């Protein structure tokens, strides 16, 4: 049971997930990220970037390994590496605590 984010307009969540094709950790990271957003955030923006297809984009966010999830907003920017299987760690990183 989590408390929805209070102000929808000012706190819009923007996420960017870098993956490597259909590698297992990448697929698991995509699945975990989507499940978490639908469950906890009514308004969110999740962009999945496949570095197998666009390797040049890794440089933009200084990506070293995949999968890597980057929280663009609300600030501060946060990075999470791995398959996102730890939900508590994921929520903490996104600045959404449990009440």
């Amino acid at each position, binding site marked *: 049971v989590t408390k929805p984010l209070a102000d929808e307009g000012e706190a819009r969540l923007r996420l960017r997930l870098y993956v*490597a094709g259909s590698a*297992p950790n990448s697929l698991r990271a995509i699945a975990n990220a989507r499940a978490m957003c639908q469950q906890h955030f009514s308004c969110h923006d999740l962009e999945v970037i496949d570095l197998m297809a666009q*390797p*040049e984009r890794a440089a933009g966010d200084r990506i070293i390994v995949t999968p890597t999830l980057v929280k663009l907003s609300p600030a501060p920017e946060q990075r999470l590496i791995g398959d996102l299987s730890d939900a508590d760690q994921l929520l903490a990183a996104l600045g959404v605590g449990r009440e």
Partner: protein
Amino acid sequence: MNALAARAADLAQRLAEAEATIEALLSGQVDAVADARSLTPLLLSKAQEALRQSEERYRRIVETTREGVWMIDAAHQTTFMNRRMAEMLRCEPIGPPGSSPFDYLDEAESRKLAAYLQRTDGGQIDIRYTRTDGTSVWTLVEAAPIFDGDGRYEGSLAMVVDITERKQAEIALRYERDRAESYLDTAEVIMLAIDLNGHITMINRYGRAVLGRTSDELVGRDWFGTCVPARLQESLKLRFRAFVLGGGATGKDVIVENLIVTKSGEERLVEWRNSILRDDTGAVIGVITSGTDTTERAQVVAKLVTAEERMRFVLESAEVGIWDMDYTTGVLSWSATLERQYGLPPGTFDGTFKSFAALIHPDDREAALAEVTSATETGTDFSLHHRVVWPDGTVRSLDSVGHVHLDQDGKPLRGVGISLDVTDRRLLEKRYQMANKMDAIGQLASGVAHDFNNLLTVILGFTEFVTEDPKISDRNRRDLGETIKAARRASVLTRQLLAFSRQQVLETVPLDLNKLITDMTGMLRRLIGEHIEVALALAPRLPLTLSDRGQLEQVVMNLLVNARDAMPAGGTVTIRTTHVDLDDSTRDDVPSIGGHYVLLAVNDNGIGMSAETQRRLFEPFYTTKEVGHGTGLGLATAYGIVKQSKGYIFADSQLGQGTTFRVYLPCADDAASIAEVEASATRPAVTVSETVLLVEDEAGVREFTRRSLERDGYRVLVAENGNEADRLFAERAAEIDLILTDIVMPGCGGPELAARLRLRRRDLRVLYMSGYTEQSSANVIVLSGGPPVLQKPFTAADLRRRVRDVLDRAPQP
């Protein structure tokens, strides 16, 4: 400051990010590492991940498969070996470094494998690996060569299946099959398989040998067309088809016998045992059969049948009965002859042991059955001697021998044997023993009689001398008369004893039959007993008959004994004499009988004789009397004596009506009749002067004889034996007129002495004295016309008469 702080915060964040990255890398949650240009080599593609998973799967398969997997390089060194392979070889999974499959192969297997690995056409190969512990594992190997991108040989991958169990089963199977094949080929039977069309599909070596043909000449060919005589082909083919169509179910033609023909055209008889041959679905595909060449056996059987027929004929003709006991069924089979031996009509014996036992004489039954029982327990030969009682009460003696065959457990299976009726033989044997006994008694009796006669001669002689002395009293004379009577009775008994033993000297003289019978009467009455009356009907003025007194007495005695035995309860025997003239037609069964005869007829009113008995009456040893009661020789002897006397003897009898024996004796001619004249009891005047040479070894007899002769006026020269007589004769031959000599003496006997002396004096007269005669002359020499014999004991009167008689006779030739 702010910038510195911001820079520090930024570095801290980057450090945190680096730590998180390392952590993610360590925990395996990283797929790839990126730099500005491309994904780094750590990046795993989807295809590579699939390959990795595929390898994982294959590894699992390889490790869990039942097959061994073995990879080698181009130098045949092991590069990989799965767990199963290691188990098969009982080695470490990886194997020692540098190991090779060839380390586990012996020389022959190595060559096989090396050759196989060079093949490119694939396929499989049986390889036997030898483990380091020396045991073997049979494997089926399928190897595939591995080539690199340039087509160079890199090594091989082998799949190895353990087939040890299968191999062992196969070896065992092959051994069985080889053995079966060798049986087929070495068996002394024809093994033949033919298909539904009658074509040969298999024939063993023996079958080929019998037929004289090779495998090529047989297999695939028509059996009937090739190996069966032409005249039988059609009928045998029909039978074959019927057998096959019936699936052999009827049991008919399972065992058949027929002729086959060999390559050379010879026909042989073969007994076949046929079986239907079916495929896996049970459909009939042909016939398999085993054949035994019975040509020789058939010939032997034919010979056996002939031999058996011959044997049966011989046994039946020889009156040998055959029996055969089947112990499994309890049936006892008898031949017709055997049934006859037990008094049963042919075919009426009921085949039970019980019936057989019931026919055995009760006194013999226990012993006979014990003998049979013992033989059934031991399986030995046995012989039985027992009597049987016929249903009509006849008792017969049987000898039988038999043998009982036992099975492996010692139970009787079958008994066979033969049987002979030995009743007649047994009787004959007993009579022969009896006759031997009689001979022995006769010899003993004659020996006693010889001494007895010498003693009686002395007693009689000297008693007579005393009675002639006028000085003795009348009373003494009467007493001496009694002595003489007793001595004479003793003399008669001795004489009968000799007649009985047939040891008397035979001498045919004209004699008066009536007188002979009356002289014998006293003795005969004692002989036949008081329960039988003896009646005499003697014709007066009977002509003399030429016969031997002793022999004739024996004839009369034998006929009287026979009459007595025919009248066990008593009766009357009548002795009749008469003078008859017979013409040639009186008897049909006698060729020439005409002439003058004296007839002696002995008639009894006893039990009579059967026709059979009458027919065999005069056969030696034939008797109807109980064993021990007759020799079977009495009537035979009588017959012989009568025939010897040129007479005839007949018997007429009816059962229950008595028997009459008639003896015809030839009449003596008139000239001889005067010989039988009772000598005068009175002593004639002494008018003689002849000289007698007396030779006698018994002192008493010698002395009596000398004194008697001297009283009669003879001059007597006395010798104790032949040699002394010889000497006396040599000195005084000229004056000796008569030799009076004992026949039997120690050293030189009477006849020998007489013969020697007569060489010197051919006209010398001889008179023998005898108590009995030698065995060699007994019963066979008739001294008729030869030197006369004075039977001991003799009286002075006998001596006087016979000496005078001989001296008055013309000189002997």
